[in-house]
């Protein structure tokens, strides 16, 4: 959208519908707010929370992100942070090598559920067990969004996907993996939390989790992890406006939000 269209209102006649004022939500560490993700997608919201938290902590010029492959990858060339693009599933080990050579930087990974919990499950588990001083971030929408809505390891029972047309059932397709709970059990994990972006309150809470995870890494106290549940109405085959409700009620009842491990606990 061009700025002239946004800033100049036509006042020569009464508007046909009430004028709405839109604010600029593009975070400072993003080069452009323009993107090609679907309407109702939760990933730009999660990304904004991540970038704003980095900026708040003064880490913009001291952070390296390692990103996997998913819908959000289309946004990464617009992120104004030093990045390494990893393979699907392999971000935690790439981040490990980078952190060991650049211990003074904040190292975070960005992966989706198909990336982290399907393709590269051992990577994040071993990074956590090693107590690697990195922060792994999971954008979990319970579906392979980029391929068009296929079952992942976090798809909840009953959820319809393109390869579970009648809904995921445990007999045929097994159970979803509660990844944050698994990671919280490991000795090397210092901080683990699961947040969401389905409403203002959940976004604010998620930002608090991100801040604690990054601060944990900066204190050098081991592995930290934040899972963020994100909407994918396209991949869930629900109307766009129903995404937040579906996330809260269907996904959120299986992947329960909250802090699962905190230092000293």
């Amino acid at each position, binding site marked *: 959208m061009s700025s002239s269209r946004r800033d100049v209102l036509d006042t020569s006649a009464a508007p046909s519908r009430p004028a709405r004022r839109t604010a600029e939500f593009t975070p400072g560490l993003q080069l452009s707010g323009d993107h090609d993700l679907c309407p109702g997608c939760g990933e730009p919201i999660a990304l904004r929370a991540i970038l704003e938290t980095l900026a708040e902590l003064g880490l913009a010029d001291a952070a390296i992100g390692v990103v996997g492959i998913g819908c959000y990858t*289309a946004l990464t060339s617009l992120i104004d942070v030093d990045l390494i693009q990893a393979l699907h599933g392999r971000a*935690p080990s790439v981040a490990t090598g980078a952190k060991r050579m650049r211990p003074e930087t904040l190292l975070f990974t960005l992966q989706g559920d198909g990336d982290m919990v399907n393709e590269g499950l051992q990577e994040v588990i071993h990074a956590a067990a090693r107590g690697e001083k990195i922060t792994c971030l999971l954008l979990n929408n319970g579906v392979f969004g980029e391929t068009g809505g296929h079952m992942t390891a976090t798809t909840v029972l009953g959820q319809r996907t393109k390869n579970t047309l009648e809904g995921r059932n445990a007999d045929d397709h097994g159970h979803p993996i509660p990844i944050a709970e698994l990671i919280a059990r490991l000795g090397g994990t210092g901080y683990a939390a699961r947040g969401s972006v389905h409403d203002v309150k959940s976004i604010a809470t998620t930002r608090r989790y991100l801040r604690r995870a990054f601060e944990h890494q900066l204190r050098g106290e081991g592995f930290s992890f934040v899972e963020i549940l994100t909407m994918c109405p396209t991949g869930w085959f629900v109307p766009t406006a129903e995404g937040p409700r579906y996330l809260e009620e269907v996904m959120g009842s299986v992947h329960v939000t909250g802090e699962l491990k905190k230092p000293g606990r």
Partner: protein
Amino acid sequence: MEGSEAITEAALSAGCRFFAGYPMTPFTEVHEGFARRLPDVGGVCINAESELEAVGMAWGAAATGARAATGSTGQGLSLMQESLSEITRAELPLVVFNMARGQGDYFQATRGGGHGDYRHVVLAPIDAAEAAHLTQLAFHLADLWRHPVLIYGDYLLAHTSEAVEIVHRDFGPLPEKDWAVDGSLGGTGRSRNVNPIGMTKGSKGIDPAAFWDHLQQKTDRIEAAEARFETESCEDAELVVVAFGTLARFARYVVRELRAEDLPVGYFRPVSLWPYPKGALLEAARGCGGVACLEQNAGQMIDDVRLSLLGEAPVLPIGGISTDAAGFGVGPLLDAAVIRERVLGALREIRP
């Protein structure tokens, strides 16, 4: 010292400060050497949970500009191929060691063993001293071209003790690593994105055609510049014996022995398996009656020999599958008497 120790000491002297690996015979001692020695120089060695993670860790370390390495045997390298393909496309300098179980990994090493359209440099040392030299050169070439370099060795190379002096070698100036990520450019609008898909910071989407063209042009330049070889007594040879790595050491010995008996045999060794020294082999074989290809596998390098000669001389395979009971590649072919008979057989075959 053993070849494996020569390799680790040479790597340290070349400034390697990161290694990640996973144990596997006959590569294990290279890994042990890095684990023992890297902490002495302020480096890091990680015992990765699998080869997948080992190559990923090396990828991350290389992306920060550090001189980094990983390695395994061919089996472990199979697991790494997806990443090696991407690392090549991300234009990252990385040194990879294959202490192979024989020479059956020739195709894996030289054809771009993973998905996609790429090759990386492959150097095959003949002995421990050359392994040290080529290891140091590998780090230089990797930085010079921003491209992975693989050192192809085997059981005998890694485990034969020889007198080796590790001297620091300077191969010339290198470009600045201004592409390496250190976190410092965030928020400036000039932050970096080390990626294998042709993403440019600040613009949406990718331009795969332009990106792949750029990589192919670089690959062509490497191919033109980095072919290496060794040759002996080819000028008046009726038969030229081609071999690489450990087997070439036996071949060179046999050719010298036969020359001392006034038999018209020559010796040609590709030091770089990719790029293959095609022009040099064609030149060495000019006027000869045949080229004998000695390799310890079912016939892989022979494709490159034929592609080099383009029908200029008949090509005779005189190698073959040869292994010990453990499958580590120390088979009966690694015997000068056996090779001598095969070379003499090839000579009889081409003589009218």
